């Protein structure tokens, strides 16, 4: 016999421990005498640490002062952020002339705007956008940062870069507003949507050429003043060195890895030798070699820009690590993939470019990003060979007469800055991994 009630029993509320903060506390932190004691001790330790940090770094700290003595007059024990604040321009831009700093900001803004469409789903033509960044942006940025007289080559590249940028931005707007790519939109606009491929292409080429000519004539009318590289510094220099290092060492690393796995003995031996030599010496040795020893072997009076030497050293050094990461990724690809590629008639570059690399690179993201973060932090070594990168600048504050001895605050500031940069990179890589491996979920 079953007892059936017609009325539904009222829902009971979830247990207190699941809904209220108090309940959660009771369940997780104060469930037994022992746990309660542990919790109290931990809270006390956290309080001690945090209160110390807050009192030192905020409550007792001095934010406005002209010299360190004034900080002391305010509080003998608090932090003296005033020194860091006074040096912010140096920390971010180095010795770059203050009235020209907008060029660095502008260069950075340009890069962000240029890359922005890559993150927007509605914008078409991502590969072209990516290629245009790699091909044109370095020249435009290089000119913005260096300045001086444009040679004919620079005029050409700067005009090309501005043209590419304008097209890119228009394409982004068209994509956002009309959800289509710029070329299709233009064809519709001129009623040529049904014209043959060849006609369409010719019209587009003519338009690009016309735009280029206009931009070329316009850019010939202005110059920015020259800023020699010795004035570069701070975070800007760190980002320039590591940016170029990252952008160049990845492709170079891919080629080295392919070379190391090549069936051609000369290529294989050279790649392996290169990787092993550069990987077996510390970065600082490579830097010293590049800046001190290299000039000894050169004809007298031949001076290669020290910054270029450093960048080359960083690229070569990191390419080796990248190569080994890429090689590891390649080895994780099952042999069947290679054989499959061969059976559909792909040659070596086809196999690598279309089948193997896309799969391998996806697996390598965590390692590559790890390496990139490492590179960013490694570039602070250049402060030892006399470039004033961000670390060099932070350490120089304690030698500036008004702030003599002020070294903790700058270094803490630097640590926070590095944490923000590295943590966002690591977060972004995590996001990329999830996005790219959407098809691999088991």
């Amino acid at each position, binding site marked *: 016999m079953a007892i059936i009630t017609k009325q539904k029993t009222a829902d009971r509320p979830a247990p207190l421990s699941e809904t209220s903060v108090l309940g959660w506390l009771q369940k997780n932190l104060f469930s037994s005498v022992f746990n309660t004691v542990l919790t109290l001790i931990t809270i006390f330790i956290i309080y001690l640490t945090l209160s110390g940090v807050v009192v030192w770094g905020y409550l007792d700290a001095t934010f406005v002062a002209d010299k360190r003595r004034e900080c002391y007059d305010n509080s003998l024990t608090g932090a003296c952020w005033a020194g860091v604040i006074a040096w912010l321009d140096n920390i971010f831009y180095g010795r770059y002339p203050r009235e020209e700093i907008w060029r660095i900001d502008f260069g950075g803004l340009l890069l962000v705007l240029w890359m922005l469409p890559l993150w927007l789903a509605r914008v078409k033509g991502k590969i072209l956008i990516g290629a245009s960044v790699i091909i044109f942006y370095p020249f435009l940025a290089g000119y913005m940062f260096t300045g001086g007289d444009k040679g004919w080559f620079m005029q050409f590249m700067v005009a090309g870069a501005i043209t590419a940028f304008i097209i890119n931005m228009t394409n982004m707007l068209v994509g956002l507003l009309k959800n289509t790519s710029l070329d299709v939109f233009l064809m519709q606009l001129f009623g040529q949507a049904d014209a043959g491929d060849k006609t369409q292409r010719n019209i587009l080429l003519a338009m690009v050429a016309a735009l280029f000519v206009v931009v070329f004539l316009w850019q010939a009318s202005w110059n920015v003043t020259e800023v020699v590289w010795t004035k570069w510094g701070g975070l800007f220099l760190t980002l320039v060195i590591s940016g170029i290092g990252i952008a160049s060492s990845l492709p170079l690393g891919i080629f080295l890895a392919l070379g190391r796995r090549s069936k051609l003995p000369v290529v294989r031996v050279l790649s392996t030798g290169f990787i092993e030599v550069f990987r077996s010496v510390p970065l600082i040795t490579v830097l010293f070699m590049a800046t001190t020893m290299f000039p000894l072997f050169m004809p007298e009076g031949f001076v290669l820009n020290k910054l270029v030497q450093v960048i080359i050293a960083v690229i070569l050094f990191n390419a080796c690590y990248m190569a080994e990461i890429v090689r590891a990724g390649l080895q994780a690809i099952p042999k069947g993939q290679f054989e499959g590629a061969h059976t559909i008639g792909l040659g070596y570059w086809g196999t690598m470019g279309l089948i193997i690399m896309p799969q391998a690179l996806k697996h390598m993201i965590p390692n590559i990003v790890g390496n990139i973060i490492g590179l960013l932090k490694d570039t602070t070594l250049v402060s030892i060979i006399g470039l004033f990168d961000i670390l060099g600048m932070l350490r120089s504050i304690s030698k500036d007469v008004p702030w003599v001895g002020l*070294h903790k605050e700058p270094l803490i500031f630097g640590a926070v800055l590095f944490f923000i940069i590295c943590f966002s990179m690591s977060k972004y890589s995590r996001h990329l991994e999830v996005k790219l491996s959407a098809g691999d979920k088991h």
Partner: protein
Amino acid sequence: MKLKSKLMTVTAAAAILFSGATIASAETTLETVQARGHLRCQVGPPSPGFYNLDSAGAWYGIDVAICESVAAAIFGDKTKLEIQSVSSQQRFTALANGDSDLLSRTATWTMSRDTQLGIDFLQPNFYDGQGFTVRKDSGITSALELKGAKVCVTTGTTTELNLTDFSRQNDLNISNVTFEDFNVRDDTYLNGGCDAVTADKSALAGNLANFPVPADHLILPETLSKEPLAPAVRHGDNQWADIVRWSVYALINAEELGITQANVDDMRSTSKDPNVLRMLGAEGDLNTGLGLDKDWAYNIIKAVGNYGEIYEAYIGGGEQGIGINRAGSLNALWTDGGLMYSPPMR
């Protein structure tokens, strides 16, 4: 044996090749600098009073002023100058390999450096000496009372060696606590990690002024070492060495003659003192041997002032100075009992 002789031949050939390369480009340093359009002057990683960056990114300090004087002497413009900051491990190599034209960076003039490294030290622009800082409440008033003390010192310099020597000479059994960075050294001392700090006295005074309570500390009277800090150039180019040497002498001589940055124009046009007129190029031909313009010395004083002014600005009590008294020190003029003495400019 055969292999060895072969190796010797190769080495010799290489040596000839390299020396040949250097001889072939017999351009003097002055010509190189003039052709380049600016002077490359080497300093070190920032050091208070001598060469440091201000918050606007400009270099200043007494050694930077020497760089500026030489640039002014050559170009009549102290801004035609590239300051190179080079680590102390690389400093002499960077001078020897032609990267720097001139080294002006608190390098102590010692015999081995002068005779073995292929460089020449010139007229010192600052005489320093090593000393100790102690806490006043320790009751120590003489370095000889530091028996068994822990002394904080930065590593890799003559300072550390001098300390060991001093301890041995006086049987003090001092234990060295070494640091790479002077800030950490001073922090350790302030937190009680050692009983005394040792460094060059100028640096001690500069740092002490920035301790939380400077009055709690004391620099002991003893001086452990002689530290003549002098600019240096590559060995073998005498004309270039003369230019740098006489640029420093011009600073000292100007102070002796009472020529300052402010009155140099007046002095040149109205002075009756033949010494002043000769130095400032209003008469005579002191410049010809150097290969510079007639008003080279005038340009120096106009650009940076005389030695006393530079000292006051960066080492003394000036706005950017580290507050070390000059009177009675070795850096006073010889007429005031110091060592700053210029041969006559005539």
